[in-house]
């Protein structure tokens, strides 16, 4: 008997977070991710954990910040306009070195935009978004099962590096139902407060202070350098990338999240027509899998970047390929999901033109 | 005799609130379908209508466009 359950992506990430030991959720309603907080609101009380609907996203992320300072596994979920409001908190969290997980179910923008699936918050997520020199780890699942699995990884990475981990999704991934197999529950019975956390001094020898403030420039520079060292370590050990049919590929499609999934169909269709295409799918979009692109630049004729934005990951691809091979782009804006057929058309045009 | 309650059938969403508040019960949901798929309200007893305007006041869709009262001809 399979233990798989058919579930919406939006609910699967909530269930998975709970199993991964997430003790608290703080958030604020926004479409298209309401199924996630609604699921938390049902389940968290059942397992004796915290669910709280905040008065705004600004408040929600600062509640997350507070909980994170106590070393508690904590999460918030939102969508693009709400994530914009949270940027202040993200910046404070980064310089305070506290762990948390944030899910962004991206919708069409800018401004109020629409509620259709989009990927236009890539730059905001990977380049910082808030003020200051900082990064968050950013992961981009492409199936419901992967989203559920990556939720465990997200909390693990957050704790390991005391960093914010962002899961970039979109409304299509949230609404889609697929069979999911959940991992074993993380045992939270013996949860201990980490030594660095601020939950009262207790038996600790020294009190803890968590702050992002350092008024002396020399002191702040040291803090900033320490942050950068952490990022360097993450870049060297936490890059994750999937390659599909790349062994003999002459053309590399590259995409993340929902578009990457559609791209697998494009690869299959292209190969039926004799075009040796493959897919490079960054799973972590920060740190970006630069080396994979660098290596494949020796092999393929060109890269074909497809996104639901105006070409945001494109820049990272170009930097990684560093001029060795052409990098072409195709994208849809405003919340339109490109079809496999239109992507294939574009690819065929490029192949035809470059043969 | 002119009608006392003028309904814009295209705007009606069959919410039934006017039927409910009408003190004389002279409104009802009709059998017709408007383009949106709703059955619009209709005044079926003009004579009994007292032009109180309750239907106009409660209508959320400006579908009760106008409420009128006959002017008595001076003898």
């Amino acid at each position, binding site marked *: 008997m399979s233990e798989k359950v058919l579930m919406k992506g939006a609910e699967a990430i909530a269930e998975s977070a709970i199993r991964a030991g997430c003790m608290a959720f703080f958030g604020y309603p926004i479409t298209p991710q309401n199924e996630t907080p609604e699921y938390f609101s049902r389940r968290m009380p059942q397992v004796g954990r915290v669910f709280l609907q905040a008065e705004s996203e600004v408040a929600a992320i600062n509640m997350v910040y507070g909980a994170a300072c106590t070393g508690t596994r904590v999460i918030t979920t939102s969508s693009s306009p709400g994530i914009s409001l949270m940027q202040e908190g993200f910046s404070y969290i980064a310089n305070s070195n506290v762990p948390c997980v944030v899910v962004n179910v991206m919708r069409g923008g800018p401004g109020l935009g629409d509620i259709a699936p989009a990927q236009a918050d890539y730059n905001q997520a990977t380049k910082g978004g808030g003020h200051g020199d900082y990064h968050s780890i950013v992961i981009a699942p492409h199936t419901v099962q992967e989203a559920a699995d990556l939720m465990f990884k997200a909390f693990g990475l957050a704790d390991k590096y005391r960093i914010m981990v962002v899961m970039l999704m979109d409304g299509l991934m949230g609404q889609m139902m697929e069979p999911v197999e959940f991992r074993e529950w993380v045992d939270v019975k013996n949860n201990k407060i980490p030594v660095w956390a601020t939950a009262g001094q207790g038996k600790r020898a020294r009190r803890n202070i968590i702050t992002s403030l350092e008024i002396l420039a020399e002191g702040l520079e040291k803090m900033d350098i320490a942050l950068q060292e952490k990022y360097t370590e993450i870049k060297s050990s936490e890059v994750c990338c999937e390659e599909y049919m790349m062994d003999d590929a002459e053309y590399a499609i590259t995409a993340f999240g929902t578009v990457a999934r559609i791209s697998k169909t494009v690869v299959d269709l292209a190969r039926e027509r004799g075009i040796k295409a493959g897919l490079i799918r960054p799973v972590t979009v920060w740190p970006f899998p630069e080396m994979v692109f660098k290596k494949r630049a020796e092999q393929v004729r060109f890269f074909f970047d497809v996104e639901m934005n105006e070409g945001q990951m494109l820049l990272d691809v170009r930097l990684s390929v560093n001029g060795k091979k052409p990098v072409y782009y195709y994208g849809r804006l405003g919340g339109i999901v490109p*079809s496999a057929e239109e992507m294939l058309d574009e690819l065929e045009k490029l192949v035809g033109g470059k043969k | 005799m002119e009608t006392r309650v003028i309904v814009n059938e295209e705007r009606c969403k069959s919410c039934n609130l006017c039927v409910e508040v009408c003190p004389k019960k002279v409104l009802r949901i009709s059998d017709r379908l408007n383009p949106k798929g709703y059955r619009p309200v209709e005044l079926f007893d003009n004579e009994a209508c007292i032009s109180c305007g309750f239907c106009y006041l409660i209508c959320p869709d400006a579908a009760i466009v106008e409420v009128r009262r006959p002017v008595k001809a001076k003898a």
Partner: protein
Amino acid sequence: MIMEKQVIISGFGGQGVMLAGELLAEAGKTEDKFVTFLPSYGPEMRGGTAYCDVIVSDKAIASPVISFPWAAIILNLPSLNKFEPLMKKGGIIILNKTVIPQDVKRKDVRVCKIDAQTIAEELGNEKVTNLILLGAYAELEKTVSIETLKKSLKVFLTGRKEKLIQINEKALDIGAEAAKKYMASRA
């Protein structure tokens, strides 16, 4: 040969389009197949167009989005207008004839017309129209078995809705039967 069935179920909100799609996906999952279910809604909260993409496959499913459906279960006219031009050659349209009396123009797709809403009313519940058509689909395409669909009903109809299981099971059977008859009459 690898089987991958791409089905669109379409109607207006309230016709049980989503339930039929989820049920098909659940049954596929129960038969250890790969499945995806992707809903799309119109902008209105009530009364808008609603359709869903369901894929049932022997192998891992790449894109969950269906551009050109192999099968379409069509509950109202706007849905037929939308999906008829997109159907794959040789695919099948299963029509709710009660609401859509007109013919399908395409000659390169198979059509199965079932007076589903009338049958549902005769059964005593207009709301099982969706499952009559789903039963017909399952009978014709063998994507999943009627038995598994029946078993899967228990996942969705719980608590107060449990009493609806029987009539829904019946709807699946009657739909399958009607499809057989319709196809025999055409043969």
